C-alpha cells in the first residue's frame, strides 16, 4: 500500500482526537480522544519505519536499518497503558469528590 494512505488515516484519526478534546466535556471521552491522537502518531511511526526498512532492504538483504521504530511503538504503548491507569484514577477521584466527570468543573487552576 502506498504511504499516503497511512498518512491520511493518521491525519484523520489525529484530527478526530483534537476535535474531541476541544469540543467534548465528558472527561472520559476527552481521555479517549487523547488516546486516539497517541495511536494516530504510533500508526504514522510504524508506517514510516516500514518504508525506511523496505528502502534499506533493496541494497542489503540482511539489514535491520529503519526497523527500530517498531520497537519504540511498543514502549509508547506501555507508557500509554501506565498513563491510562493514572488518568482513570484521577477521573475516579474527581467523580468521588464532585459526583461528575464534566471537565468544566476543573476550573480551579485560576487560583
Amino acid at each position, binding site marked *: 500500500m502506498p504511504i499516503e494512505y497511512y498518512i491520511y488515516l493518521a491525519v484523520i484519526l489525529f484530527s478526530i482526537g483534537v476535535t474531541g478534546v476541544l469540543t467534548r466535556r465528558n472527561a472520559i471521552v476527552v481521555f479517549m480522544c487523547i488516546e486516539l491522537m497517541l495511536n494516530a502518531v504510533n500508526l504514522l511511526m510504524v508506517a514510516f519505519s516500514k518504508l525506511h526498512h523496505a528502502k534499506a532492504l533493496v541494497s542489503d538483504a540482511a539489514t535491520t536499518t529503519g526497523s527500530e521504530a517498531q520497537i519504540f511503538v511498543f514502549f509508547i504503548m506501555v507508557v500509554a497503558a501506565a498513563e491510562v491507569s493514572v488518568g482513570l484514577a484521577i477521573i475516579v477521584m474527581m467523580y468521588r469528590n464532585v459526583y461528575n466527570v464534566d471537565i468544566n468543573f476543573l476550573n480551579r*487552576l485560576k487560583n
Partner: protein
Amino acid sequence: MLKLTYLIPLFPFAGFLLAGLLRNRLSKSAVGLIGCSTVFVAFIISLFVFFDVLKGKSGTLTLFNFIEVDKLVIPFAYQIDQLSSIFLLIITGVGFLIHVYSTAYMHEESSDHYARYFSYLNLFVFSMLLLVMGANYVIMFIGWEGVGLCSYLLIGYWFKNTEYNNAAKKAFVMNRIGDLGFLIAVFWMIAQFGTTTFTDIFAQLPGGASTAVLTGITLCLFIGATGKSAQIPLYTWLPDAMAGPTPVSALIHAATMVTAGIYMIARSNLLYALAPISMHVVAITGLVTAILAATIALKQNDIKKVLAYSTVSQLGYMFLGLGVGAFTGAVFHVMTHAFFKALLFLGAGSVIHAMHHQQDLRFYGGLKKHLPITHITMLIGCLAIAGIPPLSGFFSKDEILIHAFASNPVYYVVGLGGALLTAFYMFRLYAMTFLGSERNDGHHAPHESPKAITYVLVILAVLSAVGGFAGIPELFAQNAHKLKNFLAPVFERSAPLLASHEHPSHTTEWMLLGVSTALILAIIVWTNRSYSRYQKTDAEQQGISKLLANKWYVDELYNGIIAKPLLALGGFLGTVVEKSGIDKAVNGVGKLVSYSSRQLRLVQSGNVANYVLIMVVAIILIIRLVFYIRY
C-alpha cells in the same frame, strides 16, 4: 646600595599601615616612635644612595611589570639618579624633622587621632617618594595622586569643622583638574612614543615627535604642575590648605606636594627644551604668580596665610627658573626653599602654640623676649627667604634671577620687584610678631615651646643658613657650584638646546647683585622700623589695600564664573531634567508594565478547555511559521 632603594618608600608605608591599623591599641609615644623612625630609616638609606650616586652609581631598579598590554609595557621601576637622590634627601630629611616636630605639636590630640595623623603623614611621605623615584610617568602619577589624596586627608584632619572640610575638598578638586592634564599628557606620550619610561622617551628625542606635539604634551604636563604646585590659575587651594595642622602645612609647602610640579618639569627637561612655547608659558605663568601672590601676602593678617602666599610666590620663582632654562637653579631653590619654608612654618607653629592657637598677626607683638629660640630661628628664616647673603635664599634666588636676566631683562625687573615684596611681607610678619608692644589680650603668658620643637627649628635654621653653599655662583669662586656639577648629567641633553642666551658679564652680574641686595636691605630696615610701631586700628581698609586684603577677589571671581554657573546648571538638571525627564521616563516604564500585566491577567480564566484550545491554536501557528520560514 641601589638594590636596597626599594626599602626607601617601603618603610614609611609600613609605618602608615602600623599606625593606621593599630591606632586604637598603640600609645602616643609608640605611634610617634614608629612615625619618626620609619622616615628616619628612609633618610639613612637615602643618604647611602646619595653617596653612591655621588660616586657615579646611578641606575634603574625594576621590581615587576606593572602593566603589560600588547607592546606597551610599564614596569614598576625606580630611577635613582642625581635628581631623584637630591629630592629623596629633601623629602626624607625635612620630612623626618617635621615628624619629630609633630610629636610635640600634636600632643593635645587623643591617641587614636594622633595615630591617624601620623599614619597620614607617613603615607604622604611614601607617596612623595614614589613620585620622585618612579622611572616612568605612570609610577610618578601614582605618587602624584597619592600626595593629592594625603593633602586632602590632612587638610581635613579636623573633620568636625565644616570650613576645614571645604578647604580639603577645594584642594582635592583643584588638584584633580590639574591631574587630568597630567593624565592626558601620559596618554599622549603612550600614543606618540609607545612608552612612558623617561629614558626611553628621551632616547627618541629629538626627532621622535614634532614640536607641535611636544608643545601639546608639555602644556598638558604643565597644567598638572599648576594644580600640584599651586600656580595660576589653580593656586587658590594652597592658602586654604592652612586649615590643616601647622606641621602639615610645613610638609606640604617644604618637603612634599608642591615641589612635585617642579620635579616633574625638571625631570622632563628635554621635552620642555624642545618646546620653546611651553618654556615661555611656564616662565610667564611663574612670574605672574610670583608677583600676584606676593602682593596678596602684603595685606594678610593670618600668619599662616602670609607664609602660604609666600610659598605660592616662591614656587612662581621656581617656575620662572624652569621657564628660562635654569633647571639647576629651580632645583636649588626647591632645596633651599624646603629648608627655610619648613623653618618658617614650624616657627609659626611654635608661635601659634605659644599664643594658644591665636593666628592673627595683629594680636602678636613683642614676643621676642618670650620665645628667644623661635625668634632667632625665624629671623634667620626671614633673612634667608628675603635673599640676604650669605644665607641660602640669596644664592638660589640670585641664580634664577640672573638666568631670567639673560633670557629677558623684563623678567629680571619684575622678578626683582617680587623679591622686594617678599622682603617686605616677611619682615612685616617678623616685626608684627616679635617686635613692638605686646598686643596679646589673653590671660596666659606666652611660653617657649618644648625641646622637640626648638631643636628642629635650630637644625632647620642651620640648614637655611648654610644650605646655599651647595651652589656658590662662579662669580665668587671658580667651579664652586657643586649642585650644578652634580646635576649636570640629568640636564646634559637639554643644556645645548638652551645655550642660546648670553650669560651676562661679571660686571653686570656684580651690579645686579649689588643693586638687588641693597634694595632688599633698605626694604627690610624700613619695614622693621614702621611695623615695630604697629598699633591695632579698627579702620576699614581702603582702595588697593582692600583689594589686596581680599586677595584680588580671585576666589569670588572663580565662584562667580565657575562655581555658580555649575551650581545653576546642576540645579536645572536636578529639578527640571531629572524630575520631569528621567523620573517620568523611568516611572512610565514601570506603569506600562503594571498596566499591561493587569490586562494580560484576564487571559488566565482557569478553564482547562480554554487552555487546551489556546495550546492547539498556538502549535498550529508555530508549525505554520516554521514552514513559512523554511520554505
